[in-house]
């Protein structure tokens, strides 16, 4: 027997509760700015981010170049703005891949039978053992060093997080009384999934996605720092950071700009995810499996939907 479910006010309620927190307001404000810059960065840039001017290279901040110029005389501010879109979209791509590869098998593992559940669990366990950076380097070494290949590899390693969250949440709802009632009333498996399960799973997945986005952005920056993913001269935060480190003698403060962009954005994403999770905490809509359910985890639900 499972606990009764609270109303599906769930996500909206969670957002309302979270919005009362100053950290959420600050995070949203930061992420809104990042989003605007990601979309309009190239247009906001005062100079062409790829335009080289050897006579102006490695200059410090000035009226003409607010954040100075890099080793090829390119305007750092323009590259930072233009690089926002590349960095954020890469992270979003990885999260999207992780979502698809995690959520779908996560749902399937609950409903598709014991063999599928066992196989999915073993694959996820195996993926969890792999370190992000090493795995992505290995993948791009085998296939090709491109941004989409790198993000696909990264997304694959983000999938276990989504898988586990989706599976745990779904497992709870699949045993809820109202789901059993819907089954008895003759609702199809697809309808139960669409109407009774997915809406409850989405808030938890959304919170997970916010946290994963922070992880992905950090990983994307690390990878571009290592020269993996987006190729120069396209600007990325990680790539700018790596290049600036080679010229510390000329411009010791230069790495601060991309480093702060990474830190602030990742911090905002993590703060938002934490606040949303905490706001869900006492009102978590996930009914916990009963002891009987835990003893017989896969006997009932797979054949029903």
């Amino acid at each position, binding site marked *: 027997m499972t606990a009764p479910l609270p109303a599906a006010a769930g996500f909206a309620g969670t957002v309302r509760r979270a919005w009362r927190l100053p950290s959420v307001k600050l995070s949203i404000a930061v992420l809104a700015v990042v989003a605007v810059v990601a979309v309009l960065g190239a247009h906001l840039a005062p100079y062409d981010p*790829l335009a*080289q001017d*050897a006579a102006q*290279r490695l200059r410090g901040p000035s009226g003409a170049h607010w954040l100075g110029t890099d*080793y*090829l005389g390119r305007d750092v501010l323009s590259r930072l703005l233009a690089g926002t879109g590349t960095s954020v979209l890469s992270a979003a791509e990885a999260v999207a891949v992780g979502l698809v590869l995690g959520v779908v098998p996560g749902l399937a593992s609950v409903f598709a039978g014991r063999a599928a559940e066992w196989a999915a669990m073993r694959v996820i366990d195996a993926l969890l053992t792999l370190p992000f950076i090493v795995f992505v*380097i290995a993948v791009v*070494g085998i296939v090709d*060093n491109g941004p989409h290949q790198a993000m696909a590899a990264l997304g694959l390693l983000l999938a276990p997080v989504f898988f586990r969250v989706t599976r745990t949440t779904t497992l709870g709802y699949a045993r809820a009384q109202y789901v059993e009632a819907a089954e008895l009333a003759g609702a199809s498996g697809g309808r139960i999934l669409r109407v009774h399960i997915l809406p409850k799973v989405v808030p938890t997945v959304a919170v997970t996605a916010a946290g994963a986005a922070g992880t992905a952005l950090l990983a994307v920056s690390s990878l571009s720092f290592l*020269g*993996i993913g987006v*190729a*120069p*001269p396209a600007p990325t935060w990680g*790539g700018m950071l*790596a*290049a600036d*480190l*080679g*010229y*510390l*003698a*000329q411009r010791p403060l230069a790495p601060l700009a991309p480093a702060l962009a990474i830190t602030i954005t990742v911090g905002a994403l993590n703060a938002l995810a934490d606040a949303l999770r905490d706001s869900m905490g006492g009102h978590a809509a996930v009914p916990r499996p009963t002891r009987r359910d835990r003893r017989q985890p896969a006997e009932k639900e797979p054949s029903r939907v």
Partner: protein
Amino acid sequence: MPASPPHRIRTTFTVLATVAAAVIALGACGASGKTTGSAGGSGGSTLKWGWTLPTTWDPVTSRAGNDVNVLSLVYSAITRLDEQGNVVPGLARSWTYAEDGKSVTFTLRPGLTFTDGTKLDAQAVRANILRGRDQRDSLIASQLHNVKDVTTEGPLKFTVVLKDADYQVPALFAGKTGMIVSPKAFGGDAGKRLDTRPVGAGPFVLTRLVPGSYASLRRNPSYYDAAQIHLDGFEVKEITEPATVVAGLQSGQYDVATLPPNQVDAAKAAGLKVDVIPSLTVRVLDVNNTIPPFDDPRVTEALKYAVDRKALLETSNFGIGEVDLQPFPKGHPGYDPALENLYTYDPQKARRLLAEAGHPDGVNVVITTGTPEGLPEQLQAQLKTAGFTATIKPIAPAQHTQLVYVQHNVALAPDSFVGRESPLQALGVVFGPEGLMNPGRNTPKALLKKFDEIRTTPLDDPKYVKRLREAVAIGVKELPNVWLFSTPRIFARSPRVSELPRVAAVQRFDGVRIDAR
């Protein structure tokens, strides 16, 4: 029972005092270490060299031209190159060619020994040359394929018998090809350990090796030129982050270190000495003229006009070095001054050539590189002006050898040619039909003929330099590689270290002293 407030206060103070004492003690240790470090950190006269460790300590299987610098610390070669690039005695004190140039007899210095105590005699040299020629995984075999046999006449004399006349042998023996390893160290199972346990007759003996980190060496008192070695010990330390070299020198982590060009001013400002030593290294674009669009000679010619070498030198190397359109640096016997203005930067001419080649709207190319920042980005911008739309394809640095030198499936790749002791050997690498840096592998017949002429010309013959330069001219004009600029070795050193010898072929430490504090 809970402690009373006074007890808690005392306990707190006790804990804080203990922690404070520990912090002070650790700080003192740190400060002590720092003081030692700033004093150079060297015990006695041990010199710490910030450089790179070799791919292996076996000269026969060494995979990088750069390895020769560290291998020279533990091995002596049959000959040496002096600061002017002339071949001078090494283990051999003299040599004489037969009239027909088909054999050369070397006479060794007397009393030579390896660091394992065994004698370094003609038999040992013979065993080394034949090993280099015949060992299955030898990477110097191609340089010794002309060696028919090596005969010995007593303990000090050996004759290299050649299939065809070749006057380059003494120069060839100044590098890895001529480094002599104790036969006891490469016979049987011992050979498998040679990559980490070298036994030679060089100025130093390897005592400790931590792969990827450092190698410790001590002075070899039995080295034939030991009077020139004033250092008791030597440490080769891998530079993990070039941006920290100046800090490493200031802290005493290194006494001498190779310096990125952009840190020269910072090193001088920090009170360090900077040596810019001519080297045989020249930056180059490897071009495979069997891959479109470079299979059309007009496109490769356009590429040569599309590159602003001076701008690349100024930006990539901070102006240290010289624009160089050929594989030898200025001052080398093979350097041909007549080629200096051959391909001056002319993007309009490049566009015209592309149009003639059927690309009036420009052409797409891919720059494949393990270090995409810097030169490739600048090159991409220059090529755009000349009608080449270039995409940069980053690869792992370790893939460069496989893709460019072995598989030959890369059309355009920035590279560096580190030079060779024998000029003909160098030309073979960059222009020869089996040359690593001739990915198209199509050497003009006229150049092959010139190679034969050089090989059969004694080095002191006035025609030798002329023929060398003629070969260079053919290679530069007929083959697709684009030569950019020479790059000297740049070292920063502690003021305690005396000036370094200025030998282009290999970094030596003869005569170098370090003041003990």
